[in-house]
């Protein structure tokens, strides 16, 4: 491999109490690729993302083993977990609009990171909202509450928020769940542009979305890697594993 991987995961195991969720995951994510993750419910997709930015810490019963390196830095022993989280933008499947204005929602992370100049913040907010395809809809009411937006708008607000701290890695967990197809396509276009600046991990239930966007796709099932390969191979007639074929073609289960 020419470039060193951006994320290195080795034998990652995760259990919530007695329930094993990830059973020995090892994989590399390369810089500036779009890395698709597909798999049925309960397969550990979201948990994998939560291990990356250590939000798994909020679950008291969670037990993590194995190593994760982001840019060579061991995530589980990092000194500055806040810097780590700033490096990784996270979009959760259910939008959580902070009880702040739209503007403050997006400006929250840069402010926490110490950006205080008004002009910089305003430019940043506009850019992020444009990238999330939300700017045109909210530019006249940036002062109103983020939680007042519709579900799909809130989802795009969380995307704008995740971009606001200029992450190196953007994790999208079912981002299009509440967004109409047209807007989804617009965001997908933005993602294709963004990959020039960042690595994108795209967790999705829409296998076709992974097919459209991802360079490589991981098929996760029951906490184990079934197959990880170039997207065209995963979606071809002959993936390495028969389960993959069945899943992406809707025969599975």
């Amino acid at each position, binding site marked *: 491999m020419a470039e060193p991987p951006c994320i290195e995961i080795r034998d990652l195991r995760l259990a919530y109490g007695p329930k094993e969720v990830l059973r020995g995951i090892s994989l590399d994510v390369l810089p500036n690729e779009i890395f698709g993750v597909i798999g049925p419910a309960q397969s550990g997709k979201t948990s994998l993302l939560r291990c990356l930015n250590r939000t798994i810490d909020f679950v008291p019963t969670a037990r993590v083993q194995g190593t994760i390196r982001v840019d060579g830095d061991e995530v589980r022993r990092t000194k500055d977990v806040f810097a780590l989280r700033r490096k990784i933008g996270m979009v959760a499947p259910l939008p*959580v609009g902070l009880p702040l204005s739209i503007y403050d929602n997006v400006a*929250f992370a840069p402010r*926490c990171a110490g950006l205080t100049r008004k002009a910089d913040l305003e430019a940043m907010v506009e850019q992020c909202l444009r990238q999330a395809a939300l700017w045109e809809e909210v530019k006249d009411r940036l002062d109103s509450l983020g939680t007042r937006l519709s579900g799909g708008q809130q989802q795009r607000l*969380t995307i704008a928020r995740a971009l606001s701290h200029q992450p190196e890695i953007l994790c999208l967990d079912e981002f299009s769940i509440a967004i109409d197809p047209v807007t989804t396509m617009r965001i997908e276009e933005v993602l294709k542009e963004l990959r020039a600046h960042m690595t994108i991990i795209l967790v999705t239930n829409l296998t076709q979305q992974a097919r459209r966007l991802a360079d490589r796709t991981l098929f996760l099932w029951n906490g184990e890697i079934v197959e990880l390969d170039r997207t065209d191979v995963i979606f071809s007639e002959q993936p390495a594993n028969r389960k993959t074929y069945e899943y992406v073609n809707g025969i599975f289960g």
Partner: protein
Amino acid sequence: MAEPSHPGGRRPGWQALDRGQRARPWEWVAEQAIRVVSVTAIVLVFLIFVFVMREALPVLLGRVNSAAAQERRALPVEQMDRLDPEELRQYLELSRKEFAEMDRDTLRLLMEVKLEAAEEVPEDKDAPLNTAAWRYLLGPHQWTGYDRPAYIWQPVSSIHKYNIVPLIVGSLKTSVVALLFAVPLALAAALYVSQLAPPRLKEWVKPGIELLAGIPSVVLGFFGLVVLATFLQQVCGYASRLNAFVAGIALGLACIPVIFSIAEDALTSVPRSFSEAALALGSSRWQAAWQVVLPAAVPGVFAAIVLGFGRAVGETMVVLMASGNASLLTWSVFDSTRTMTATIAAELAETVFGGHHYRILFLLGALLFAVTFLSNLLGELVIQRLKRRLEGGR
């Protein structure tokens, strides 16, 4: 409440289920019992208000005369026979029943007592003043022996001076000191316990602070009187040992658990997803707590402060013991002071039932009632407004 009956009589199938009250007599009984209890509770509270207002009303309407010298009433004893019985009864301020039960000698004795009382009237230019009138209750007056107009509360001197302004200011001073002391402490503690503290510490701190609520206020007053007063005087070096400041701090101790426990509940009930979303964005725990959780909990926190204010204004024993109880009208918190509550507690038992002093104390009670009622009402309005703003209604 009348039971709406179905026009078509009996209904078939599941539709009959939603009118199950008649089929379940016990539920009906329980419902009625609960209704009676709740109505009783409301009526009782209302009756308290009615009672307080009834006692205070004569003062409110200016029908009470507290002049030390009430000349036209002092009649010589010999005139007794010239008055008809009804006039005599009114002159002696007796009820019909009492009057009927008394024989002539007793009445004569009462006449003499009345006359003596009239003759004992102090040689004072203020003696004919009705000090229970509004202008003396609220405005300054230059009493005999004073070199300038002043606000004086001296209900048991020869001239009854009933100016309630010093008491209102006293209540205000101690409450403000108490809130200035208690609100930051209680809110900081609530924020810490609900957002930042490790769970194990939280298990200890929360009941610990709430235990403060269980301390009888007389114990807090004692603590303020003995320990706090000396300590604060040594630290601050003011002249009078017991003053509004000491009382305010002791009162603050009584308010902290109230404010803390309500604010803590409000902060804890903010969905964890908010703070987790903030943390996932790379904020510190403190930033998440301060910038996200606190704004989301503002209505509850405000309610906590309003209740704390209610407690501070209404608390009696602490201020009675630690404030010094001198009804001085000054703005300095380091002067002894006296609150409305302490005045009622200290003086009501000594008053003549139905007399002017008695009625003015009830006026204070009504005033307290009004203050807490208004603060709660205002608080409720503000809370509704904050909630609407947070929930994003129109």
